[in-house]
């Protein structure tokens, strides 16, 4: 290594020294194998869960095929049932974002249920405060309050993580219980409507200030909130500089720091947005379904949202599809009881099996030669 190096243009040296790429670098090549993998593995996981659930039904002495047929009919079989499915899908889209957005950053947040509950409380409080104003003003106030309170809720988990090193999964999970306790306290105390006897509730939002159904359907405008939020989330993560930074942090925090990114600020903002989405879910539950805050808010949409986010691999657009599918499964809970005398919770067994299989399938990526791109240099 004692030959003198001529100082030519940079790069020329490297190019000379290492027999290089012939011709121009191909720009984009559709990586269909990766795409196929990202679809095939979750689908296979859901099918596997279906198989296990079928066995479960068999053990219970029911014909699994007729159970699945009934679930399909109850979820998508008719215009009415599909509307019912969509009603359940709208909060799912929003709560799923509460896990999906921080996941892109490398955080595992499961405080969706709590953020939904406090978001609903905030929305009720704001709605009651401005109940005399025109309906759009009430809706805007409720949405803002739901988003804000939910955002601060998960933002707090983010802050604890970045400032004090608290594990965000544990803290957000435990905050669910705090949120539900706070709600119980409020609807039994300061916010209680004396007229609500057997189910303590807050004072109700006036009927004419509620989010109305779309046209002649049973589907309320909350579904638009969900759709718009998912599309915005996709756009934010895939198209903006903010999303690019978030993906850098999520992919390798050391590289992000090397690039000078403000890691904790990005994390905190993402947590705010995530909690805000779940808070909005609480808002639409209050403003379009219940009309008041009570224990029905904690109906499990938050936990189901975690499942949706994982099945959709934390991507905005697939969340829409998965929410509709899971909404359908949730909507069919009643039919299992009525038609097959299976307990209501049976559908939770199915949901739990799907979640387990999806988590298990995460370890399957990169194991199948069929899905390996052939371009490793």
């Amino acid at each position: 290594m004692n030959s003198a190096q001529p100082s030519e243009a940079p790069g020329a040296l490297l190019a000379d020294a290492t027999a290089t790429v012939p011709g121009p670098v191909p720009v984009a090549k559709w990586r269909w194998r990766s795409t196929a993998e990202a679809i095939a593995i979750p689908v296979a996981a859901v099918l596997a869960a279906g198989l296990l659930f079928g066995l479960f039904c068999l053990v219970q002495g029911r014909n699994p095929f007729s159970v699945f047929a009934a679930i399909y009919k109850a979820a998508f079989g008719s215009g009415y049932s599909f509307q019912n499915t969509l009603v359940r899908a709208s909060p799912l889209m929003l709560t799923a974002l509460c896990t999906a957005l921080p996941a892109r950053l490398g955080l595992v947040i499961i405080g969706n249920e709590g953020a939904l509950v406090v978001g609903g409380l905030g929305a009720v409080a704001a709605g009651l405060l401005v109940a005399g104003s025109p309906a759009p003003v009430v809706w805007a106030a409720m949405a803002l309050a739901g988003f804000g309170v939910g955002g601060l809720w998960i933002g707090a988990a983010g802050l604890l993580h970045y400032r004090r090193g608290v594990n965000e999964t544990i803290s957000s999970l435990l905050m669910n219980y705090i949120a539900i306790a706070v709600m119980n306290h409020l609807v039994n105390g300061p916010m209680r409507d004396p007229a609500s006897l057997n189910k303590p509730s807050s004072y109700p939002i006036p009927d004419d200030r509620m989010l109305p159904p779309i046209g002649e359907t049973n589907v309320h405008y909350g579904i638009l909130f969900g759709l718009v939020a998912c599309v915005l989330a996709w756009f934010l993560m895939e198209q903006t500089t903010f999303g690019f930074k978030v993906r850098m942090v999520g992919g390798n925090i050391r590289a992000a720091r090397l690039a000078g990114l403000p890691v904790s600020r990005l994390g905190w903002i993402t947590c705010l947005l995530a909690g805000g989405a779940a808070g909005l879910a609480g808002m639409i539950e209050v403003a379009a379904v219940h009309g008041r805050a009570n224990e029905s808010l904690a109906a499990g949409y938050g936990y189901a949202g975690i499942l949706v986010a994982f099945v959709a691999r934390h991507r905005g657009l697939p969340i829409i599809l998965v929410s509709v599918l899971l909404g359908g499964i949730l909507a069919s809970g009643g039919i299992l009881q009525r038609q097959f005398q299976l307990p209501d919770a049976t559908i939770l067994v199915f949901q739990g099996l799907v979640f387990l299989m999806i988590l298990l399938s995460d370890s399957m990526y990169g194991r199948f030669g069929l899905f390996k791109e052939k371009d490793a240099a």
Partner: protein
Amino acid sequence: MIIPPPPGRPAAPLDLELVQVTKRFGSFVANDRVSLKIPSGTFHALIGENGAGKSTLVKCIMGFHTADEGDVIIGGHSRDIRSPADAYQFGIGMVYQHFTLVPAMTVAENLVLSRPDLPATIPWEAERKRLNAFMRTAPFQVDLDQPASQLAAGQKQKVEILKQLYLESRFLILDEPTSVLTPGEADEVLGLIRRKVEAGELSVLLISHKFREVFGFCNSVTVLRRGKVTGGGLVKDLTTDDLAAMMMGGPRTPRTVAKADRAPGAVALELKGLRADKDSGVPALEGLDLCLREGEVVGVAGVSGNGQRELVEVLAGQRPATGGEVLVHGEWYGATRTDAARHGVFLLPEEPLRNGCVPAMSVAENIAFREFDRPPIRLAGCLVSRRGIRGFAQGLISRFGVKTRSTETPIGDLSGGNVQRAVLARELGPGTAKVLIAANPCFGLDFAAVESIHGQITEARNRGVAVLLVSEDLDELLSLSDRLLVMSHGAIVHETTPAQADVKVIGHHMAGH
């Protein structure tokens, strides 16, 4: 002794001989026909620079690696050691650089649990009696009921050694056992082991960087350099100068890389009393002062673990400084995006995939990490143009010869050398660097790539870039640097120029002598 030695395990100190041991990793030869002989009851030192192949060699003895060629001869018989369990059977034990104690368990529990022949239920009372009897003959005392987590580093190291004695090891390998100890503790521990050796109970192989330990405690020494034995013998026949010469490979002629003759310009980077901690919270930088001018390459040499990594991490924004300040062009520098862009501070990190890339993102995106939020890639104030990223990256990919199937391939799929080229393209491609920090930029690269990276660095220097080169390769430092600094224990301890450099002196300073 207290535990009857398992059948087949020797009762006297072992003699061990390596004959022509060769170990290759791919095309890289880590150990090249290494032979050494350690007679029974001697204290033998194995010394050499980082990457000289010391650890690989002892891993071959311990059965972590299997030598490609050559023999390990124990007590006159060639032995096939395939796992650490085999090594244990032959009576060989090793104390690692890092602690292997279970923090939540007491010393007694740690000692008992280290036995490979542990029964399913442990008769604690009987074990306790054995332990107490063992401790009466032990060279040093440690409170058996203390949890390991509450022991100071020196005590932990003692427990690690006690563990080997408790296991009746007759041949002890110590891998830089004193790197975590204060000099006082080091002397104490090595002194006690030395006494065991003199009492005819042990043979010891000590891996070290420190001449003081070799001359203070060892009978004989072997020096490795680049995988080969470059010397050795009885310690009493050698001087520190002899060892330094063997370790550094004698006087070296600096390679010349067409350095333009230019006087250094204004101060570009200045570090004043910089302090930072290691991950463990132990201070890594202890008031480091350094000054780097435009158009000069300042090399930083040192044995790894003396704060070089932490220094680079502080400059990269990956580790917070706990004191002192970093000034670039006279202004306070906080390693943010704005600061880095404004002052043109670029950085070639070591292990580029771990430190500087997002494996799951594409080659093009990784190359655009410094530019994605600036026009022309940024559109309308907040959008990232995919086409912009591709266009930007495409030119650099072909200029720097990054071999990739497409711009959209995840960078994690590329080979190490190509990842390195991609990072080089990102940091040097735009040509806007004013300060360049390079950490072991050529580690693991082949000859041609090394040559071209050296050319790039020199070319940048000739353009007036201030270059800080932190490297473990002294040859690289001598050929590229205008000034050479030696770092030890978190501070600069020596400064010289390649022309005046005396490798023996540098070696002394690196070894903390």
